[in-house]
């Protein structure tokens, strides 16, 4: 009980939230007045306090977009989308920003099965998947406990009827949750922030240039060596680029 209470307090935190809300409102009014640099500063201050939500990232993306900072705009839209994958506005603006990205990386065609599976797994957000997994877990065990306590009667019959459906439902959301968690921890992505960056074949300055990338391109992040980050493009090209030219989603 004490744990739950501390958790709730963590989420509400009135003092912090008040300050963040004030900054958020400030940022929004700066944005409406067309003062995008000031809007960026206000929103970034919220993040500097260690607080976030998808709206902050979305608004920040907008403010950067208005300042023609394409890389940062895309990065913040991606962060917003990670928190709220279903939001239409985020997706619209992200798509629009991506149209201005110079590099066009052909995505190799995927089989319909893979596309369908991917869409099915990402139909719900990670948070919702976690909540559902935990909730159905509790439901499943409640049914088991009821069954253990009453050997006959209404409760027992109800429990017997609900056991298998709830087990199946739990297994489904647990797979989705596990899959998303696996993806999140194993496939990290980043956005190129520098206007133009040379990707080399090795993590060294004098290495051969492999290709160049431009602001706003989404890359998959692999290993890090010194100041260099190994990246992989959607079409499978691999190379190294300076770490500071990237922003991690």
């Amino acid at each position: 009980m004490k744990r739950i209470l501390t958790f709730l307090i963590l989420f509400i935190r009135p003092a912090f939230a008040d300050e963040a809300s004030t900054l958020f409102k400030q940022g929004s009014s700066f944005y409406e007045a067309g003062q995008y640099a000031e809007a960026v500063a206000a929103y970034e201050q919220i993040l500097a306090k260690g607080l976030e939500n998808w709206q902050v990232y979305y608004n920040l993306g907008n403010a950067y977009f208005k300042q023609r900072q394409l890389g940062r705009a895309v990065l913040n839209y991606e962060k917003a989308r990670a928190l709220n994958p279903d939001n239409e506005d985020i997706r619209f603006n992200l798509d629009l920003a991506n149209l201005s990205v110079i590099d066009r990386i052909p995505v190799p065609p995927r089989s319909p099965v893979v596309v369908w599976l991917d869409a099915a797994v990402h139909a719900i957000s990670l948070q919702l998947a976690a909540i559902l997994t935990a909730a159905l877990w509790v439901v499943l065990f409640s049914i088991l406990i009821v069954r253990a306590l009453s050997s006959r009667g209404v409760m027992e019959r109800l429990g017997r009827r609900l056991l298998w459906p709830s087990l199946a439902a739990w297994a489904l959301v647990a797979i989705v949750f596990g899959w998303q968690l696996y993806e999140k921890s194993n496939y990290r992505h980043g956005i190129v922030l520098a206007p133009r960056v040379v990707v080399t074949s090795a993590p060294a300055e004098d290495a051969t240039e492999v290709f160049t990338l431009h602001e706003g391109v989404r890359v998959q992040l692999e290993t890090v060596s010194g100041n260099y980050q190994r990246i992989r493009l959607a079409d499978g090209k691999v190379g190294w680029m300076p770490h500071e030219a990237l922003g991690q989603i």
Partner: protein
Amino acid sequence: MPMMATAADITVKATVDQQRVALQEQFTLSVEISGSDANRVGDPKLPSMESFAAYAGVSTSQSIQIINGRMSVSRTYNYAFIATMVGKHEIGPVTVEYKGEKFSSQPVTIEIVQQGTQPSQPQQRGQTTTPTTEGADLSGALFIKAQVDRRRVFQNEPVVVSYKIYTSVTVSSYGISQLPNFAGFWAEDFPLPQQPRTTQEVIDGQRFLVAEIKKVALFPQSVGKKILEPLKIECDVQVQNRRRRNDIFDSFFDDPFMSRTVRRAVASSPVEIEVESLPDVGKPADFSGAVGNYEISATLDKSSVKTNEAVTLKVVIRGAGNLRMLSAPKLDLPPDFETYDPKIDQSIKYDNNRVSGSKAFEYVLVPRSPGDIEIKPVRLSFFEPRSGTYKTVSTSPLTLSVAKGSEEFVAVGGGLSKEDVRLIGQDIRFIATAPLPFHRIGEAFHNSPIFYAMVISPVFALGLTLLYRRHQEKLSANVAYARQRQAGRVAGKHLRTARALIGKQDSKAFYAEAQRALMSFIGNKLNIAEAGLVMDELAAKLEERNVPKDVIVDYVQCLQTCDLKRFAPGEATTQEMHEFIEQAGRALEKMERVL
């Protein structure tokens, strides 16, 4: 009379169409160059013929033949001349040059005779109308004039050429035998009535009937000196009896009764036109070759429209000039319009040496997003030859209010690749303004304590439930287990009762109670009936359970004490009873530990 000059694979052949030609008549000198390289040689060089003929123009034709895989090309130059001097003349060799080599034809001869002395056919007399070329000298009485409205023009500025027959004799019919090919010009004919209208003109005291037979507007396409070739016609001229008709000039013909028809070929003289290039000074960037004087207007067929519905923008260019060559003006539309190629409609009038009219461009526009959209003025830049300057006219701006249609506008198609997507110039969506809860960065439900609690606690709860349930089952299913679990409690109860009896001075009841405590404990623990339990039997059963000897001895001793005291006469002292209850308690305790 073909004369051949053969060398390498170029052959030059010069011919005249008539060996005898009347004075003032036209003849043609044809130069045919043939051979596989014929199309690469330069123009032929003509010998000097000024002494007996006047140059009237040239036309060329070319034919290519491939026979047995070998290509042969022949080019023919037809030079028109007017005979000017009577006599027999030799036309010297015509030469062409190819790769430094000279090829020449054999000379040809031509005889120029006085008019009327050329007996090509027996004279037709009587009531015949068969045309003859024989006859009087009509050169002063029948000629064609090519009139141009100006001789110096700018590129693309029209020159109106009108060809007129001047005649003082009766022309019964005429036919154009050779039309000039207006090379280097875009020609537009003026429509003329089928039956030429005639007017009268007096030149040098002579009255002429004038008929316009061809009128053409020429738009020069290239710069430089241009020569308009002559127009040739053949006329049937009726020469009539002067008595029957009081003609305006003296007839040369003797025949007093009959009229004759004479065929005459006449040609206009070539006209030279100087074409100037358009000045570069002040040339607008969007100038696309329009020359003349124009105005432009634009209208929309409706002022309000729904998205994805078509609206027509009509741009009309009116004026005089090279209207036919005007290309569709470029529209500067907001990018959220879809446009299609315009439908072009032109109506052109020809009057008074002017080519004018209007050209309408109908653009179909489909707006993709709602709002009040301004259509920027459509501009047209043209060169005005009269003032020699460039001018730009534009339409007034138009506004179109677009309401949202029923169909949903999708800016970015899901399945489209980046290149397929047309950037619709639409702005990003507005920021989120709703108040909202914040949370720590990186904080997610799946690594919050509540998540772990929700995952772990049901497992514990179920485990505890199962343990409890197992216990309940054991209790209800196993008597021995139940008795064993109750043994200590039952023995304790009897011992408490016995202790209470100490104060009542009833030693017999006390010992009976103590014995019950000891016996029930063993009976319950070993699940045996205590009633029929004999001391030795009991000791044996305990030994089977591996109970240590000393514990058994102590226990049995207590039981024997009880037996003894119960049946012995006299009361035991309180002291004794206290000691015994301690002893029995210890024995029970020891037994409980091992059983």
